[in-house]
């Protein structure tokens, strides 16, 4: 009996980071470990069609370790290996690592690997690339396609990222308790970046891009499984689900952007909403409120409302207020002004915008003009609304958004 290739592929993607983690722990040469894993995965893809071994992870580790050992024994690789291994771990530690293979077999090293790939020495784009490659198990070509850059560029970015991690003297161990919180914050940010990149692309010809949102959700699920007590991880997963739930309703047939208040809510994914609401409720109950939980809570209020007028805007206003207290972010302040206008009317909202205009971070920012245009329209100032829709269109770097904003300006101009 043969096994479905899809089932094997799925299993291998799940196991790849764990196996790579085990190997990097044992042989702290990231690049060589990855090569060995690739060979083991290739062997598995061929051989498992005849039947999946009883302990697939152990099988992969065995094969990869054998490849690594062969490599280390090879004279050509000796010098390379000595440099790398010695630079990363002292010899006594090496011996201890080598002795612990049995216990490694049962250990899930994905978390350590994720922390390594989201090392603070890396730029955001490098951490993203390394995480997708090493933890996500995507090929360099797939990542390059997802980010619309040449494969050689992505290969270079990943190889430089490995070099940076090595130069930073990163060790394959979890950070100390006092550092853990900040490092987890970086991991969460990287996963969120991946999700956002994927979510932004949800229609039209770009559908062929690798689905980064699903990948980010898969990795965040993994992180949540490994750190079930962490409220912000739970909050992030909730936010992703509650946002992704609206994906189908977010773009029209021609790929045009449909704003939240005009989306067909019957097309929202109820399963994702239910799971997201459960997660954010559980996270908030832990008492360590953070920005991702609050953003998830806001998304949940939107997702549970039957339409825009029945949305609980006072609660959204309250949540943005809390969020603003945690992080001084002008976009949050802008969103709060929108919620304020929904509760207290457009004129009161416009007064709030006056105060935000002084913030240099919002200078010439298209969102400020877009919000102003929207509030001016609601306040009955058609000329002002047209002017600011056009200004916002000039200032956005998103094609879909520009089309949307210009359509609004054109719609208002047609009214006699």
């Amino acid at each position, binding site marked *: 009996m043969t096994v479905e290739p899809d089932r094997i592929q799925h299993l291998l993607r799940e196991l790849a980071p764990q196996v790579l983690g085990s190997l990097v722990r044992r042989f702290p040469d990231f690049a060589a470990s990855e090569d060995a894993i690739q060979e083991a995965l290739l062997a598995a893809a061929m051989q498992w069609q005849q039947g999946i071994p009883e302990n697939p992870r152990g099988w992969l580790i065995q094969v990869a370790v054998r490849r690594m050992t062969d490599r280390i024994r090879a004279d050509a690789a000796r010098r390379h290996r000595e440099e790398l291994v010695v630079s990363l771990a002292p010899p006594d530690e090496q011996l201890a690592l080598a002795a612990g293979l049995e216990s490694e077999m049962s250990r899930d090293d994905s978390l350590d690997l994720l922390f390594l790939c989201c090392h603070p020495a890396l730029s955001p*784009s490098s951490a993203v690339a390394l995480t997708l490659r090493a933890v996500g198990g995507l090929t360099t070509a797939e990542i390059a396609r997802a980010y619309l850059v040449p494969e050689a560029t992505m290969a270079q970015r990943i190889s430089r990222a490995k070099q940076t991690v090595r130069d930073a003297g990163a060790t394959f161990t979890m950070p100390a308790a006092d550092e853990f919180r900040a490092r987890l914050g970086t991991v969460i940010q990287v996963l969120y970046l991946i999700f956002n990149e994927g979510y932004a692309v949800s229609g039209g010809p770009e559908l062929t891009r690798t689905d980064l949102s699903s990948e980010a959700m898969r990795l965040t699920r993994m992180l949540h499984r490994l750190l079930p007590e962490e409220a912000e991880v739970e909050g992030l997963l909730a936010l992703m689900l509650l946002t992704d739930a609206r994906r189908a309703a977010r773009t029209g047939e021609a790929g045009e952007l449909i704003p939240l208040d005009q989306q067909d809510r019957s097309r929202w994914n109820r399963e994702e909403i239910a799971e997201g609401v459960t997660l954010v409720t559980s996270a908030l109950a832990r008492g360590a409120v953070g920005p991702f939980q609050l953003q998830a809570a806001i998304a949940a209020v939107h997702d549970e409302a039957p339409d825009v007028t029945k949305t609980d805007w006072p609660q959204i206003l309250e949540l943005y207020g809390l969020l603003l207290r945690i992080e001084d972010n002008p976009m949050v302040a802008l969103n709060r002004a929108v919620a304020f206008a929904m509760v207290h009317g457009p004129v009161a909202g416009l007064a709030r915008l006056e105060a935000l205009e002084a913030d240099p971070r919002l200078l010439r920012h298209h969102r400020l003009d877009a919000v102003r245009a929207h509030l001016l329209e609601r306040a009955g100032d058609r000329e002002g609304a047209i002017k600011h829709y056009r200004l916002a269109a000039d200032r956005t770097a998103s094609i879909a958004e520009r089309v949307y904003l210009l359509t609004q300006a054109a719609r208002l101009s047609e009214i006699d």
Partner: protein
Amino acid sequence: MKYMLMMHTPSGGPYQIASWPREDFTRHIDFMKSFAGKIKASGEFVAAEGLAGPDLAKRVRAGKDGKPITDGVFPETKEFLAGYWIVDVDSPERAYELAAQASAAPGRGGVPLNLAIEVRQVMSVPPRDD
């Protein structure tokens, strides 16, 4: 985020670089090659092209029957697009930094040209909607 760095060159017929002494010309070309190598090595390169000179440039528009009507050469034009790079960087500041590096390409006698490089953001996709 992606940016297009557009290098404009003073026009007036063919590219003036064509009349430079060999040493200056070679230094300029070496600089451009090394600049391309740098953005490839840093993992920021997306695309780059040099454009043929104004001597080969035509402006085209559709006539009433849809057939092309061409116009040009443009020896009088003040400046011309000489080429471009598209880079994928972490911040606009990084794009400006790269543009400044390219702008300092050596000209006659190795003196930096300090050509104007126009930096334009490549349009992308919108973020989350709440």
